[in-house]
């Protein structure tokens, strides 16, 4: 079975600090995508970053970057210079089937950025 695991239910850091959220997954596929989605208190899910498994280079979007370790099946999200607006639930997600957008989500990590 393909699963996604986020082992940190909650995290809290001070504004401007760097924080890393962990995610591990299990798959027998060789080529796939991985995603981090953010759900702020407004409730709407927003894509933070996407990684293609066949790319060696880790994806980066401004202050957000990933550490993708394919052999270890690990996909962590690093937020640099954290801001109050980064306070949200963060979900790691993985498509269960190639060729169809059937995402399976991790349990989520509640991140709080303190002033």
């Amino acid at each position: 079975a393909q699963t996604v695991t986020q082992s940190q239910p909650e995290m809290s850091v001070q504004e401007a600090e760097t924080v890393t959220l962990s995610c591990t997954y299990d798959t027998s596929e060789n080529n796939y995508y991985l995603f981090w989605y953010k759900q702020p208190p407004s409730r709407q899910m927003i894509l933070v970053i996407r990684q293609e498994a066949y790319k060696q280079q880790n994806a980066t979007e401004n202050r957000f970057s990933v550490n993708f370790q394919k052999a270890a099946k690990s996909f962590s999200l690093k937020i640099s210079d954290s801001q109050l607006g980064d306070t949200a639930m963060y979900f790691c997600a993985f498509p269960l089937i190639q060729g169809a957008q059937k995402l399976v989500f991790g349990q989520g990590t509640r991140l709080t950025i303190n002033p």
Partner: protein
Amino acid sequence: DTAVSQTPKYLVTQMGNDKSIKCEQNLGHDTMYWYKQDSKKFLKIMFSYNNKELIINETVPNRFSPKSPDKAHLNLHINSLELGDSAVYFCASSLHRESGEKLFFGSGTQLSVL
């Protein structure tokens, strides 16, 4: 303009009632989805349509019936509501059905069954 809009945002109803949630996207996307988020924030896909064709149909009670009149709309009808149906229901869309596509989500419908 809201890209993916769903109505209503909140729905409070009695057990046994029938209710519908509507979703519309103005992005020109081919594929639309319904996801359910339970009280523990766990998100699970329910259905997906691609150009009005049902392509994903997870194991959900048959009291839940999606309908896609055109590729810009995907509605969810729920018959005989039960307490366990209380959750937040999210509509989403993607340009195509492929697994690498970005999902655009609506702001959710919080359903409370009393």
